[in-house]
């Protein structure tokens, strides 16, 4: 069998929002681009985003601007964000939305005919450009159609649509290749046939999205196996702050078919209440001191809030995501959960069937069609679900270049730093576009400056041997079983509430599975063989899990998407530290690295009393860098 070889200027791994935006940018800079994705073109996890894309266009409230958006993002991330990424994101998001419109996106409109914007948790003004509750689909389809449009241009000018840009769908990349310390290409296999593919390219953009499939209950699709995180680690790049994972408080836990699928926050906004198996409305017990003046401490007042929001405090069901997730988790751990390990979320008692169907149409459909549950009559069972990873590849904010590996770039969920310890809803879609574009441009600039970097035969042979391994192994381990075991470990020990002891246990157990994963044998041949595919995905998930568990063990505080039962408070000295994961070919090690200091002009955007909640007095006294 001869090896399929391709030469491109830039290889983009992942065809979600970030990958496609990067592809467009690199192509428009005059380079040849390969887009490689595990699924069919247009199926990426980006389609799952519902709420919208946050950009301070000020269409609905003209007080909005990038500075307000920047502040909101930093607050949401509890000031662990890389300030420069948050700044670039807030400044460039509106342009990225507007250009989508030029490419055919049809957002919902205001009365003036501008792009409409909606409110969302943590955003001071209505800021989310949206299309009903399918904004992610609109974004991915628009990008997909933009790619097609550029290909049509090439077809017209050169007679070959795929001359400058080609999509390699259903291809898994197993290794990023380097020569002389710089990127030289990528190696993988076609899922369809199992045959191997070599891409020679001096620049690689990783845009592979998240890691949700590492966990048992997740809102992520099968693709969220942390491929990019692991590929980057193996290529010598670093991951930053892998301990931060966002658990959405209300994912489905039952029926099994919908386990992990999101139940939108609006269900609670519309009056959904949370109860445990004793029928107790438990959220009243979980209002933290800092919120006591904003949230009702009795049912009567909470109920009145829906009618009169000025004279009553909010119901505790509407506490921030992390608080609600922790409360549900505690109830279940205390044995007051439902039969299937969740709690009840009920809108049927407060609202009439008609109103529910009108205000929550997609939720009603989701439950009725996917689960046979009529939410106008019966409660839903919900529990926290792994939703998003804030940690990711450490990058230079301006170029999205991965730190330490010339020629490697990362954008989107796979990149770290932008969201700090907790992401605001709506910020991920614009993150994809802003940094997808910057990665594409960064890669283009790099290629123009550096030129080609040929791959050696030795590197190819090594990569090929790795792919053959599961077929020659007689170890007899089953990839599906190991995956399930890993998910049990992460769910029980590295989940939403963590302790030092459990994390230590998890690290040992993950190492054990890693050892066993060397003995995975695959049945059947190479042709579209999911067992074979899982063997590679599993290897990536193991690295991610190890990195998360180890980072989490080191961080002795609770902040955003990282909660330590043994260190419940937020600690300002820990805010000054990022955790950097690196990989030596055998195990992941973590080192602490000081967080870049907020420059004075950004520091001054905040009220100093607010900063005092997050920063040490020494930092406040200094008043930012410069």
């Amino acid at each position, binding site marked *: 069998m001869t090896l399929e070889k391709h030469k491109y200027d830039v290889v983009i791994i992942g065809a979600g929002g970030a990958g496609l935006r990067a592809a467009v940018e690199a192509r428009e800079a005059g380079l040849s681009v390969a887009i490689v994705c595990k699924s069919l073109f247009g199926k990426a996890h980006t389609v799952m985003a519902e709420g919208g894309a946050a950009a301070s266009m000020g269409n609905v409230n003209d007080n909005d601007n990038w500075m307000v958006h920047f502040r909101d993002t930093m607050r949401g991330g509890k000031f662990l964000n890389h300030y420069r990424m948050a700044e670039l994101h807030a400044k460039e998001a509106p342009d990225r939305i507007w250009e989508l419109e030029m490419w055919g996106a049809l957002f919902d409109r205001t009365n003036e005919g501008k792009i409409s914007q909606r409110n969302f948790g943590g955003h001071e003004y209505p800021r989310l450009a949206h*299309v009903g509750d399918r904004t992610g689909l609109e974004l991915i389809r628009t990008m997909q159609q933009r790619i097609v449009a550029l290909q049509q241009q090439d077809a017209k000018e050169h007679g070959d649509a795929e001359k400058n840009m080609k999509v390699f769908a259903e291809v898994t990349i197993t290794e990023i290749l380097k020569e002389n310390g710089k990127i030289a290409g990528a190696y993988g296999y076609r899922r369809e046939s199992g045959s191997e593919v070599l891409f020679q390219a001096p620049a690689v953009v990783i845009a592979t999205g998240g890691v949700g499939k590492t966990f048992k209950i997740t809102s992520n699709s099968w693709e969220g196996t942390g491929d990019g995180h692991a590929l980057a680690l193996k290529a010598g790049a670093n991951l930053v702050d892998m301990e931060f994972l966002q658990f959405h408080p209300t994912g489905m836990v039952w029926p099994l078919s919908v386990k992990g699928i999101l139940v939108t926050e609006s269900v609670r906004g519309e009056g959904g209440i949370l109860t445990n198996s004793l029928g107790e409305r438990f959220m009243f017990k979980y209002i933290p001191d800092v919120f006591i003046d904003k949230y009702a401490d009795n049912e009567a007042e909470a109920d009145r809030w829906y009618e009169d929001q000025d004279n009553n405090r909010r119901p505790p069901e509407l506490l921030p995501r992390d608080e609600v997730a922790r409360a549900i988790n505690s109830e279940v751990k205390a044995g007051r959960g439902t039969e299937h390990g969740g709690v009840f979320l009920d809108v049927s008692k407060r609202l009439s069937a008609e109103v529910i169907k009108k205000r929550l149409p997609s939720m009603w459909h989701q439950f009725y069609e996917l689960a046979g549950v009529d939410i106008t009559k019966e409660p839903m069972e919900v529990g926290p679900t792994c939703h998003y990873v804030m940690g990711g590849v450490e990058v230079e904010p301006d170029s999205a270049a991965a730190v330490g590996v010339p020629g490697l770039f990362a954008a989107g969920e796979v990149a770290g730093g932008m969201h700090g310890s907790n992401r605001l809803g709506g910020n991920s879609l614009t993150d994809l576009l802003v940094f997808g574009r910057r990665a594409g441009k960064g890669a283009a600039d790099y290629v123009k400056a550096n030129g080609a970097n040929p791959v050696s035969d030795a590197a190819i042979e090594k990569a090929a041997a790795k792919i053959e391994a599961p077929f020659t192994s007689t170890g007899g381990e089953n990839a599906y079983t190991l995956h399930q075991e890993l998910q049990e470990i992460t769910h029980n020990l590295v989940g939403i509430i963590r302790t030092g002891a459990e994390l230590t246990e998890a690290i040992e157990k993950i190492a054990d599975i890693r050892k066993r994963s060397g003995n995975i044998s695959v049945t059947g041949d190479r042709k579209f063989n999911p067992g074979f595919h899982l063997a590679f995905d599993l290897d990536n998930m193991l690295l991610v899990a190890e990195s998360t568990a180890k980072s989490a063990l080191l961080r002795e505080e609770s902040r955003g998407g990282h909660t330590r039962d043994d260190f419940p408070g937020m600690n300002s000295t820990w805010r000054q530290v990022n955790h950097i994961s690196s990989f030596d070919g055998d195990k992941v090690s973590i080192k602490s690295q000081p967080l870049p200091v907020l420059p004075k002009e950004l520091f001054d955007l905040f009220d100093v009393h607010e900063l005092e909640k997050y920063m040490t007095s020494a930092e406040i006294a200094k008043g930012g860098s410069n």
Partner: protein
Amino acid sequence: MARTLKLRIWRGDDKTGGLQDVTVEANHGEVVLDIIHRVQATQMGDLAVRWNCKAGKCGSCSMEINGKPRLACMTQVASYPEDEVITITPLRAFPVIKDLVTDVSFNYKKAMEIPAVVMPEGMKPGEPRMQQVDVERSQEFRKCIECFLCQNTCHVIRDHEENKKSFSGPRFFIRIAELDMHPLDMLRNRKKTAQEEHGLGFCNITKCCTEVCPEHIKITDNAIIPMKERVADEKYDPVRWLGSKIRRREEVL
């Protein structure tokens, strides 16, 4: 509430293949895709199936269940009687690759043949103004998740391989309709090309595309028929044809 389920799953490739009997446990509330995953994990490690989101939003797990084109993630096991054997096959309008996975590249080729939106010359990002009522029709078509069930069920190509070259299929008729109804699109030959290049005339309105659409897009009533009427305006209606020559109505409208 486990139940034992009898399945017949088609396994094979483009040369040979057939239905294989499988018995597997099913739990309350599971969908067919859950069952396929269980078969994969416990009995057939190499059973090929496409899927992604498992929430009816990506359109990957298209297959035929008891002969009907469906998304496996949106098909409740409980919707079949206890004693019914569930037959699962790949899509039958496209070449099979392996087991439940088919080669849907036909659709990507057709997508390439439809020019993208052309915004008015000189219009800059941020400048477009469109009213909600003017974008709503196109928005319905943009709900499409590209599961290609409509393409698969359309008899024009399902039953006549030779028509594939001259017929783009329902998914692309809604794309053309979306662009033709776009309030700002400047490319105004879409009706003509719909009829002459994409084979709109092949459609005989038998509505199977609408019947199988998991997004409940009214493909026939809201896209294909309006497009046929718009084509009639230009090609088959002498009065309107004359009118358009005299007044260039398109601009006025």
